[in-house]
């Protein structure tokens, strides 16, 4: 059954398939590390997908498309920031509202762009490196966003671990009262984190509409935002683990697509539900037993901060 699938192509494809999830998950990871639970990732991703697509088609440049995607996602996240940080609304409900609104608004904005092909995002020319057998195909024949996504993971890890900025961000997420007492602007830091999360989710969405599919249709992200949220839990709020989680998920997605194409005995519908099933399974494993993921959750996660003095 696996005979027709080339492992090098499979690994290369899974690296591409997991890019949207990595970007969105890293964005959400920063948001949650700052103590904010934004369930609107799906909405921000799809806004990024549509804004990025339109920007790329209008300017003829795929790079501008990703900029547009990031801006679209960040713009939508500002609504969430306004609701939860200024108006102190419930974060769970606000996140859901963001997703519902984003799905509607994106199909409204994108209705005249259905069936168009966006400008291509080509592979980075790495010269002779791409000709190395196996590794050339796996590692050195990707577009720039694949490398960018890995760089984002590395930078995020370093910032959280080794910089003052990361320390302040974590302090705000662990105890906003203590951070406030020390004089840090809790609200400002959280708004910035939310915007970063929005921009990352938006870029991830743009990758779906510009590279993965590549065209615009309603509901194009198909739950990727929710899977990114699950990956953050899977990762116990640690960047490198988020990368592992996203590759695991990407691997399953690519494998089931390959099995569909190879005409496996299992009906298509059951193959397409497998990524969601595996995500649930992984959540169960991570949330139970010794390594309880919840123990690593930022202590102020999901709580609103209101400075009483």
């Amino acid at each position: 059954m696996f005979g027709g699938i080339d492992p090098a192509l499979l690994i290369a494809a899974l690296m591409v398939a997991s890019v949207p999830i990595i970007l969105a998950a890293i964005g959400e990871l920063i948001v949650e590390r700052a103590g904010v639970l934004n369930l609107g990732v799906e909405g921000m991703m799809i806004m990024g997908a549509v804004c990025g697509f339109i920007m790329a088609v209008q300017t003829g440049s795929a790079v501008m498309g990703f900029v547009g995607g990031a801006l679209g996602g960040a713009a939508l996240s500002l609504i969430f920031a306004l609701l939860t940080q200024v108006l102190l609304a419930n974060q769970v409900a606000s996140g859901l509202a963001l997703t519902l609104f984003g799905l509607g608004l994106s199909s409204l904005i994108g209705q005249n762009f259905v069936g168009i092909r966006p400008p291509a995002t080509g592979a980075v020319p790495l010269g002779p490196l791409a000709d190395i057998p196996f590794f050339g195909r796996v590692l050195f024949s990707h577009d720039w966003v694949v490398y960018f996504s890995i760089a984002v993971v590395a930078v995020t890890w370093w910032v959280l671990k080794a910089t003052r900025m990361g320390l302040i961000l974590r302090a705000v997420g662990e105890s906003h009262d203590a951070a406030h007492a020390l004089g840090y602007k809790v609200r400002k830091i959280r708004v910035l984190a939310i915007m970063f999360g929005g921009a990352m989710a938006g870029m991830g969405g743009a990758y779906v509409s510009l590279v993965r599919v590549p065209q615009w249709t309603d509901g194009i992200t198909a739950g990727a935002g929710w899977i990114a949220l699950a990956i953050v839990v899977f990762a116990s709020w640690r960047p490198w683990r988020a990368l592992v989680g996203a590759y695991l998920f990407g691997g399953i997605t690519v494998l089931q697509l390959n099995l569909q194409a190879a005409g496996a005995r299992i009906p298509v519908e059951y193959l397409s539900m497998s990524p969601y099933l595996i995500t649930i399974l992984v959540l169960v494993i991570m949330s139970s037993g010794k390594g309880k993921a919840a123990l690593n959750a930022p202590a102020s996660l999901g709580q609103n901060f209101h400075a009483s003095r």
Partner: protein
Amino acid sequence: MLRLEKRPSPSRFWQGATPVLAVVLTMIAGGLMFAALGKNPVEAIRTIFWDPLFHPQFASYSRPQLLVKAGPLILIAIGLSLGFRAGIWNIGAEGQYIMGALFGAGVGLAFYPADHWFIFPLMVIAGALGGWIWAMIPAILKTKFNTNEILVSLLMVYIAQNFLSSMSLGLLRNPQGGGFPGSRNLSQYPAASNPELFAGTGMHWGVIAALMAVIAAYILLQRHILGFHIKLAGQAPRAARYAGVNPTGLVLLCMGISGALAGLAGLFEVAGPAGQISIGFNVGYGFTAIIVAFLGRLNPIGILLAGLLMALTYIGGELAQFMLGLPAAAIQAFQGMLLFFLLAVDLLSNYRIRLGYKKEAI
């Protein structure tokens, strides 16, 4: 400088006034959105909120649709509101709705073409069971393994959607349908159909079930110890535990009720207005019901009114699509906007807005 001061307890006046304020603000913002789309905003708002009920030509068609659309929304939102009150977030009602429809229609189609009185009641039970089972999965995973019920219940929607297409292409496909996807039409099978009970009203068994759910939820929350436990668990989880409320039982109960009600909504829809299982059977009632629950302030009577209003935006949206060429997605964005404004103006019921700085208490 504006400053927020937390109220000791939420203002009763604002709790009632904020949903109305949110609707008015949404109309204004929605009007701006429609204007940006090149439509006359006043005309668009009138087409959505007024014409379905009072237009001389279309009202006779669209008035019955009000109950048809409000029925499932209210039924699902009542179930969700119990969980939301207790801090249990079932957002996978869409999946539970699909599974209820599949289970119910499956039972009905299994009897085809027999004619017995018990077929429809059996379908109702199967529908509730289908939704209940689908909601029990995230509930049990939460209580046994501490998984997040928000993520699991939502991911289960995508799994249910795949089941739905598998069923409408495979097991439940109409053998006499010429190979087209979709099941037999239940409205042409009297023993299994959920017809309009009074001609021209849109009233069917699902609407009656929704009204019964409203009454039952009202009694539960106002008069029953269980309702008190639900409210207590949401407002003060620690106090609830000291008072002997069993959190595991509460999760199973709230998720179970909301799942069963969503399943019922799906069954009544497939046997009535929709008529058959098909790939595009679910139209997002499970998600819109979240807005309905919040718009109704998680209060049964409020949900009844909110469900009717939200149904009006569906029908009005269709009418505006037909008369003004307003895109279908505009109405979805409009509904999302409503939830934003609702959450935003909620501030007024929980906080006082004061001018100037408070003197520092030392």
